[in-house]
C-alpha cells in the first residue's frame, strides 16, 4: 500500500488537473466542474506545498552550512556568512511583515535592502558582462560553416540591438529584428512544442504509474 496509495493520489489529482482546462460541465455526483475542484481545493494546496518547499529548502541550507561552521570545514567562513546573512534578513523581513505601518521598521528594512542586498546582487549580475565579453572573444571563431553562421548572427544581433548599430549601417536593426522574428521564432517554437510534447508524454507516464522516480526509494 505504501506505493499504491501515492500512485492513486497522483492519478486522481493528475486527471483533475488534466481535465480542468478542457472541460466545462459538472461531474454528475459531485455537482462541481473539474475547473472548480482545481480552483477551490487543489490550487491553494499546491500554493501551500510550493511555499512550504521553500521553507524546507531554507532549513536544509541552514542545517548543512551550520554543520560546516560547527566542524570548521574548509571554507567555513563562507558558510558562516551565508548563515548570518540568511538569519539577519529573515528576522528583518519578519519584523517588516509584522509591523507594516511602522515607518522606522519599513525604513530600516529599505535601507538594508537597498544598501546591502541590492548592490551585492547587482554586482554579481554585472560581473557576467565581463565574463561574456572574454568568453565570446575566445569562443566565437569561424572554425566551421556552422560556427561562421553563429558568429555572423551574433554580431548582427549585438549591433542591431544597440543604438550604435544603426549609425554603423542602417540595416543592422532591421536585420536584427528579422533574425529574432523569423529564424529565432521558428527555432524557439520548435523547442517549445517539442518540450511540451515531451512534458505531456512524461506526465502521462507519471499519471499511469510507469514513471515512479518521484516516489523515491528503488
Amino acid at each position: 500500500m505504501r506505493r499504491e496509495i501515492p500512485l492513486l493520489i497522483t492519478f486522481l489529482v493528475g486527471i483533475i488537473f488534466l481535465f480542468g482546462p478542457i472541460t466545462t460541465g459538472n461531474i454528475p455526483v459531485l455537482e462541481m466542474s473539474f475547473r472548480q475542484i482545481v480552483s477551490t481545493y487543489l490550487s491553494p494546496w499546491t500554493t501551500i506545498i510550493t511555499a512550504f518547499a521553500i521553507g524546507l529548502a531554507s532549513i536544509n541550507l541552514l542545517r548543512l552550512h551550520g554543520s560546516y561552521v560547527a566542524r570548521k570545514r574548509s571554507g567555513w567562513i563562507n558558510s558562516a556568512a551565508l548563515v548570518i546573512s540568511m538569519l539577519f534578513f529573515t528576522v528583518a523581513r519578519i519584523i517588516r511583515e509584522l509591523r507594516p505601518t511602522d515607518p522606522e521598521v519599513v525604513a530600516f528594512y529599505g535601507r538594508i535592502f537597498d544598501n546591502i542586498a541590492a548592490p551585492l546582487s547587482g554586482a554579481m549580475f554585472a560581473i557576467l558582462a565581463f565574463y561574456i565579453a572574454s568568453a565570446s572573444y575566445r569562443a566565437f571563431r569561424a572554425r566551421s560553416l556552422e560556427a561562421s553562421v553563429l558568429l555572423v548572427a551574433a554580431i548582427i544581433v549585438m549591433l542591431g540591438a544597440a543604438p550604435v548599430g544603426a549609425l554603423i549601417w542602417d540595416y543592422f536593426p532591421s536585420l536584427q529584428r528579422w533574425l529574432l522574428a523569423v529564424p529565432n521564432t521558428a527555432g524557439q517554437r520548435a523547442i517549445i512544442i517539442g518540450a511540451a510534447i515531451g512534458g505531456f508524454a512524461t506526465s502521462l507516464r507519471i499519471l499511469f504509474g510507469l514513471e515512479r522516480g518521484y516516489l523515491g526509494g528503488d
Partner: protein
Amino acid sequence: MNWANKLQSIDRRIIYTILLIGLTIPLIWPIGIPLAVNDTTRAVYKIIEDLDPATDVVLLSFDYSPASAPDIHPSAVAIVEHLTKRGIKWVGVSFWPEGPQMSEGIMRNLETRGLKYGVDFIDLGFMAGAENAIAEFAQNSRVITTDVRGTHIDNLPLMNNITTMKDFAFVIGISAGDPGYNAFIRQAVDPMGVKFAAAIVTVSVPAAMPFYASGQLRGMLQGLRGAAEYESLTGVAGRGAAMMDAQSIGHLIIVAFIAVGNFAYFLSKKK
C-alpha cells in the same frame, strides 16, 4: 609565440579593463546616440494610451530581484510613469520574494510627488507559490487579503471591482525569469483570456518572441533598450536612455575583440 597567436589569446584582464573604461565613460558623459523604437514597445505604449483613466485599473506584477534590476527596473519605472502621466490607477503584486521591495522604491517616489497610496496605486505584496500562486491569483485575485501596508483589501477602493485577474483592464508582467511572463500566459492568458504584456530581461527576449508573434503577449519591452524606447515615447527621461550609450559601447568593444580574434585566427591559419 608570434603576434597572430598573441592576438588570439589576449589576457582577460586587458579585456575587462577596456570594457570597464568603455562602460564607465558614457555613464559619466552620455553621448546621446539616437534610438529607434521597436514595434513591441509601441504596442505597450498604445495599450496604456487606449485605457480609460476613469474606470480602468492595471495590474503590475513585479517579478524580478536586484540582480536583474539594472536591465529591467527602468522598464518598471517607465511604465509606472506613463500610467501616472495618464492618471491610470494600478495594483502591484509580486511572485518573487524581492518584488515588493522593488516596487516600494517606485511607490515612495510617487508619494513624494503628491500621489496617494490607496487612491492612485496599491501593492498587494508577495504571494508565495511561484506558478501555482499565479494560477490561484488569476482565478481569485482576492486571495491576498491584505496589502503591503497591512490594510484589508475590502478597505481598498481600487480592489472593489476586482474578483479575478480578468477584471483588470490590463496586466503587465515585469519579468526576469521563472515564474514570469510564460507562467502568466499558461495560467491567465490562455485559460482566462487575460490581456497581457510584459517587460522582459534582454536575455529572455528570443524565447519570448513566439508569444509576441502569436498575440499571447500583446506588447513587450525588451530589457534596458525597451525602457529607453519607452522613455522616448512618453517623453519622461529616465535611467534607460542614459544607460543605452554604455550598452552601445559595450557591444562595440565585444564585437571588436571578436573581430580581432578571428583576424588573428585566419592569419595564423595562412601561415
